[in-house]
């Protein structure tokens, strides 16, 4: 009975939500890196393309399934994920983590539209620090059928901005 009680408790645990400021920041030009760890302890990391807050408060990391298949496999096998979002012009950085992550296809008009919007915002931001968006255009060119999302409930967030305060928890709403 005990595992059942545990699962039940897990399912009804409230999802932590982003504060309005954090949610708004996701829409600004952000760079994303997603990390996972395979069951054998091998860490993986790859650039992701967007972090989206779903209506139920869960977060979806959008990325190409071709970029790092081992990472996606690690997420499938462990459910654990870490994603860092960082704004190039300010280096303001936040890391979100989840322990119930799953990988889903994201080939819908809605996610493609979001990808376009987030890409535009990202390129606008990096242009301010001297990058040429055309040279980095490949980052957001995800082949048809390859767009996936890693969906998870954030159980914590941490400040990753370089300097003092890095590593400190960032408040999430219950």
């Amino acid at each position: 009975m005990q595992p059942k009680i545990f699962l039940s408790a897990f399912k009804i645990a409230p999802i932590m939500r982003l504060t309005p400021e954090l949610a708004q920041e996701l829409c600004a030009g952000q760079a994303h890196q997603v990390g996972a760890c395979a069951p054998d302890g091998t860490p993986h990391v790859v650039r992701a393309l967007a972090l989206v807050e779903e209506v139920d408060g869960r977060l979806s990391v959008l990325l190409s399934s071709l970029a790092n298949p081992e990472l996606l496999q690690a997420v499938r096998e462990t459910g654990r994920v870490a994603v860092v979002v960082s704004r190039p012009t300010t280096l303001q950085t936040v890391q979100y983590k989840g322990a119930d992550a799953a990988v889903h296809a994201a080939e819908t008009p809605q996610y493609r539209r979001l990808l376009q919007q987030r890409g535009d915002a990202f390129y606008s931001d990096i242009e301010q620090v001297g990058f040429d968006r055309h040279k980095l255009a490949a980052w957001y060119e995800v082949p048809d059928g390859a767009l996936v999302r890693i969906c998870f409930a954030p159980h914590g967030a941490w400040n990753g901005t370089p300097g003092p305060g890095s590593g400190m928890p960032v408040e999430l709403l219950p």
Partner: protein
Amino acid sequence: MTASPALSHADLLPLRAVRRMLEGIIPPALATASVDGVPHVTYLSQAEYVDDDHIALSFQFFNRSRENVMATGRAALSVEDPYTGGAVAMQLRYVRTDTAGPLFERLRAKLAGIASQTGMEKVFRLRGADLYRVVEVRRVAGRRELPGTLPRCDVAAGGRALVERLADCADLPALYEALTTGLVRDLLIDHAMLLLLDPARKRFRVAASVGYAAPGIGAEWPADQGLAGVAVREGVALRVGHMTTMSLYGRAARRRTEALGLEGVLDDELPMPGLERPRSQLAVPLRAAGQSLGALLVESDQQQFFSYDDEDALAMVACHVALGLVLWRGAAGTAATGAPAAGSDGVLKVRHYARDHSVWFDDAYLIKGVAGAILWRLLQEWHRHGRDRFTNRELRQADGLGLPDLQDNLEARLLLLQRRLDERAARVRIVREGRGRWVLQVDGPLALADG
């Protein structure tokens, strides 16, 4: 590690093939995991290519990444190519942390450049250089990569041409000329200076330069300052591709000099050559016969102007220059320390340049300005008339010394000259004989030349 069917061996790359990505233009991301498998991701300020099997990562903060690496010894790195849109993922194994030595200094110098660009000088502090073995480099698949930007020239061929120029030289002036000419023509490097080390006085002297409004030949610089100072101290090439101002180093050097109460020396110093706002710098130490002889410092007003290939090419060039210094200056090979470097005939060649009144003993700069003009006048009087005594009064009345009418600081200038001659342990000295009276002492034959 179990390979996924989706992965291809064609995507595996040698580390050397991607070292140009490790320039710090786009911060790499490091993934680690705790012993119980909780992933953690962080951005790094830099990753440094060490050799074909190793990279070094900056250790700046005690944080979760550090804790994880110390516990598991494993990490993964995501590195982007800012020129093509491509990327690689690396698998790393922790080897060790250096807190001193060449690798540490290389990272520290680069971090200083990055910190100065972001205004984070007081925040960024390097605790160590973490060395990792690279066990796999895999191309990130599914990206339409652009062709890489063309290098500004064939650096390897340019380096070879420059070395051949150096091989044709038969003396130091020819070597300096070949170096400065070749850097511009063969490697398209527009700004460079050759700094010779005087280990006794812990100073660099500019022996040759190219591309500056003020060539600054003979200008001196504390040898513990700037990129060149670290390069010589650690015996490694240092390259900073971000905005690092030489003027910052210069101001630091000046503050240090002032703190030592040597403002009077500064007044008579030649201005250092150097770009006002360099965006890239590369300093390569000159080493030969087991000694550090100085450094070759090249600059650009463009970011990321110098590559790993430049580092390789200039290391080869610097080796040839250092050998030339040893050959033609003797095994000491340094910037005129100790006994005067008299020619093989035992005659000390003293040369004076009227445009700035700089005086050189053999090939070594001694002094310039008013003090240089005074010394030249005394030597001429000694040479023509055998006079070895002189007074402050006659110097004040002499034409052509450039003394101001008021507050001429003559006494301070003579003291500076006396100290400079004593430091050089030259066969020429001046000694105070009484109030306002001096004696010129010359111990050995001199050959005077003007211009």
